[in-house]
Each structure stands twice: as C-alpha cells, then as structure tokens.
C-alpha cells in the first residue's frame, strides 16, 4: 500500500513529552478525519508506547525516541515508536496482560490497551539495542459511517 503522507518526529524521553507525542500524532492523523473515539484510541496507544520508552527502555537516562507516522492510501494510520534502550528479553511475556517490571506505579496493561485500541501491534526488540513498536489502525471514511 502506497504511503500518502508521513512525518518523522524525534524527541527526548522526558515525561513532559508524553503529551506532546500523543498530540502530535493526533494532529497528523486529523487529515484522515477520524471520529473523536478513533482519535482518543490513537492518542492512548501512542501514550502507552511512548511511556514505555521513558519508563522501561531508559530507566536511568534521558534517551532519544523516534516516532514515525504514516497515512496509507487505504486510510490506514500507521505509527511506529522506536527507542535505543535496554530492549525486551521475552516479548511474548511482556505483552501478557498485567505483566510488568515497573512495580506499583505501572499496571502492566500498556500492551493490552495498545492491542485493544489498534488493529495490529507489532514489537521488534533486541536486548541492549532497543525496541520498535509498530501499530496500525484503519480509519473509517466519513461517507461510509
């Protein structure tokens, strides 16, 4: 499927940038004229993935995060969030509901929410190298709603 539009956003893994990242993704996705619910779903999924970079990938430093947003010709919104942090040893386990290495501050529901709100969620990771989470969601055309 051809890419109709894209943006690449690089930012620091500071918690103040969580709201920037999800808002920027939503501003870009606005071109697909999504419903408020679809927009909320995208923002939530991006917020989870970006928070994971800040909390888990870079526990002791302020690392670099890269977010790529793509609008595909078939009105699918694709977003990938990449870090160069600690990586995930067992991806399958990490994606189980309630699994967390984050203690009481985290719920272990991050990946479950991404999977619930997006059509597909793919995780690529290498311990010591970093993690990329790629998510897709088809936005319904206004006419067919």
């Amino acid at each position: 499927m051809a890419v109709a539009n894209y943006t690449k956003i690089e930012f620091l893994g500071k918690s103040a940038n969580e709201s920037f990242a999800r808002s920027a993704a939503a501003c870009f996705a606005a071109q697909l004229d999504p419903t408020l619910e679809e927009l909320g779903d995208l923002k939530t999924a991006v917020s989870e993935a970006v928070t994971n970079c800040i909390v888990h990938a870079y526990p002791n430093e302020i690392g670099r995060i890269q977010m790529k947003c793509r609008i595909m010709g078939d009105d699918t919104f694709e977003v990938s969030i990449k870090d160069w942090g600690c990586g995930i040893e067992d991806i399958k386990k990490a994606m189980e509901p309630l699994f967390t290495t984050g203690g009481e501050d985290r719920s272990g529901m991050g990946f479950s929410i991404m999977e619930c709100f997006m059509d597909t969620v793919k995780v690529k990771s290498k311990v010591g190298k970093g993690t990329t989470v790629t998510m897709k969601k088809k936005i319904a055309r206004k006419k067919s709603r």
Partner: protein
Amino acid sequence: MKITGYCKQGVLTLNFNGELDHHSARAAMKALGERIDAFMPRECVLNFKELTFMDSSGIALILRADKRMKEIDGRLLVVNVPAQPMRVLDASGIDRLINISGK
C-alpha cells in the same frame, strides 16, 4: 493535572482536572495519598468529570487508591468518567474490581 477536593461526613471527594498520564501520575498519587491519610474517609470518590485524557497510568493510580481505602476499611468510587478514560477502564477490565460510573 489539577486535583481539588473536600471531605464531608466521611466522604472524601477529589476532582481530577486535566490529563492523567505517567508524567502527571506521580504527583496525583501523592496528592491522593496525602488526602486519604489526612481525612481517613469511609468513602473516597474520584470525580473524573474534568479528566480530558487518561492512559494506563490512571489504572495503576485507581488500583493503589482502592488498596489504600481497603486498608482503612473504606471504599472507592470512580464517577463521571468521560468517554476516552471509560474506554481505557473498559479495556483494562478494572470495572470488575472497582465501582465505576460514566458521565
């Protein structure tokens, strides 16, 4: 994220205003814990009416507040939950453990 509130006849009501994410959760949890400890209410009501965004950081916060309330033999209620936070609560299944009502 701004939290305001009052305690009346053993019921502590806390109004959440703004976005509840990992960035704001720590300060929110601190404010919440301090108020529960100060008033020792029998009921704690989290009023989400003005909550404009919430991700899974909010689930962790609710679960901790619930735990703290159970320790002092009280109960936790979450009320006036807008659409986006409600979808997050639904997806998490937390609505089976906590008393939650929508807007």
